[in-house]
C-alpha cells in the first residue's frame, strides 16, 4: 500500500481496477488547513487523463505492472503477435496498444511487453532499431547542400527524413523515441 506521502510524478497506482500513472503532481496546503495531493492521472490502458486531489489519510494500491522480454512475430489484421522465446508463450496487442511503435517494428525484434496483472497492455522498443530503406529517390549528383534531406520509405512502411545521399536498399539506424534518422549502417 502507498500512502499520500508516497505520491510523486511517475508513480503507478491501481484505481478502479485499472493501472494509472501520475503524470503531474503538486503538493498544496493552506498553512492551517489540510494537505492536498493534486495529481493528474493517466490511464495506462486507455490513455485518458483526469485530475484528482487526495488527502493525507488516503491510501493507494500499487499497480501490478512488470515488463517481459518478448520477440515480435507478425501482424494479423489489427493484432500484433509477440512470443516469449523461453516459454514459447504468445501474446497479442491491438493496433491502439501498439500505437506509433509499429513504425519501427520489424520481425523478430526484441521488445519489452508491459503486463498489468499478467495482461499485456503495451510495449516498449529498444531505443535504436536498424531498418532497410525500401523506397528512395536516387541521389542527384551535385546535390551538395549540407543538411539537405529527403523523405524515404523504410521496410515498415514508415516515411522518414534522411540525408540526400541515402539510397534504396541501404540500412539506417533510427531513434525510436524521436522517430528520427541517426546514421547510415554500413555493410
Amino acid at each position, binding site marked *: 500500500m502507498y500512502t499520500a506521502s508516497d505520491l510523486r510524478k511517475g508513480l503507478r497506482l491501481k484505481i478502479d481496477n485499472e493501472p494509472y500513472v501520475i503524470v503531474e503532481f*503538486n*503538493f*498544496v496546503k*493552506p*498553512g*492551517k*488547513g489540510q494537505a492536498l495531493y*493534486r495529481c493528474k492521472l493517466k490511464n495506462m490502458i486507455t490513455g485518458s487523463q483526469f485530475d484528482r486531489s487526495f488527502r493525507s489519510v488516503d491510501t493507494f494500491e500499487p499497480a501490478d505492472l512488470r515488463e517481459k522480454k518478448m520477440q515480435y512475430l507478425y501482424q494479423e489484421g489489427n493484432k500484433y503477435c509477440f512470443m516469449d522465446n523461453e516459454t514459447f508463450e504468445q501474446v497479442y496487442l491491438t493496433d491502439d496498444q501498439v500505437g506509433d511503435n509499429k513504425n519501427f517494428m520489424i520481425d523478430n525484434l526484441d521488445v519489452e511487453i508491459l503486463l498489468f496483472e499478467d495482461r499485456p497492455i503495451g510495449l516498449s522498443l529498444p531505443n535504436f532499431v536498424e531498418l532497410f530503406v525500401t523506397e528512395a529517390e536516387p541521389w542527384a549528383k551535385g546535390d551538395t547542400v549540407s543538411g539537405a534531406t529527403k523523405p524515404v520509405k523504410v521496410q515498415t512502411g514508415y516515411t522518414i527524413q534522411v540525408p540526400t545521399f541515402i539510397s534504396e536498399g541501404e540500412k539506417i539506424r533510427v531513434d525510436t523515441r524521436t522517430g528520427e534518422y541517426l546514421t547510415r549502417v554500413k555493410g
Partner: protein
Amino acid sequence: MNEDHFDDNFHLARKKNFLELRARLIQNIRQYFINHNYLEVETPLRIPAPAPEEHIEAFSSADWFLQTSPELCMKRLLAAGYERIFQISHCFRQKERGEKHLPEFTMLEWYTLHADYFGLMNQCQDILCAVFRETGYEHEILFQNKKIVMAPPWERITVAEAFARFAHTDCESAIAADKFDEILVERIEPCLGVERPVFLYDYPTKYAALARTKKDNPRIAERFELYIGSLEIANGFSELTSAAEQRKRFGDAQKARAAKNCLMYPLPEKFLSALEKLPAAAGIAMGIDRLVMLLADTKCIDDVVAFTPETL
C-alpha cells in the same frame, strides 16, 4: 572533481542572486522592527509541547518536539509584559514538501500587546511596503508575468465573500461537505492577490485554533491571511486570551488527531496558564521564503534556499 561535485557547485552558485536578495530582505525586516521599538527575541527550537492543531505535524526530537511555530513561547513573553516582540526563526513541519513547502522553513513572527487584527492588517501593509522599498521594490512587483501593485490600501475580503464571489458557493455548506480546504486551494487562492495584495479575513472559528472570536458572532474568528500573487504569505489574528476556551480547542484538536493516529503531544500547560494573564494582543506569522519567492519572481521555494532536504 567528479560530476556530482560539479553539479552541486553549479546549482549552489546559480542561486547566488536569490540568496543575496534573501539576505537583504531579512536584514531590512530586522532593521524595520528595531526602528519601531520591537524587541528581537529568541525562543527554543526544541520544545516539550507544540500547540496541538489538527493539520500541523511536528517532528519529534528525542522525547520533545521541534517547534512548528514560535507562537507559544512568544505569547508567554507577551503575557509577562513584553509589549512588542519579533523573531525570525526556523520552523519544522513533517510531511510538508512541495513547490511552495519545505519541512524546515523560515518564519517571521511578531506580537503586539493591545492590538487587534484590523490594526495588524494595517501594520502588515506598512511593514511590507517599507521593507520592499528598502530592498529595491517600490510601487509594484512582477510575479509570474503579472504586475502586482503594492501601493496601499490593500484589498480586504471576508472568507464568506470570497466563497461566494470566486467559488459561487457558501462557506457553511463547504464546511458541511468537508470541502473547505479544497475549494479554498483550488478555486479561491488562484484569484487572491493577483492585482494587489489582499487580506482574506474572518475565518470560521473551526479554522482559527488560537484566535479570538468576534464579539457578536462566536462562529467567526478574528483571523486573516495575506495573499500576494496567489501565495499565502502570512497568517495573523487577534489572540484568544481565554485559557478555558483555548484548553477546550486544544482538546478538540487532540481528539481529531487521535482519531487519525497522528503523533500526540502533551498539552502546553505553561502556555495555558500564561494565557490567563494575557491582555488583548495580536500576532502574525509570515513566511520569509515565500516573500523571497515573490521578489525573486520564482514559483519554486527550492530556488530561494541554499539547501533543500533532497540536496543534503
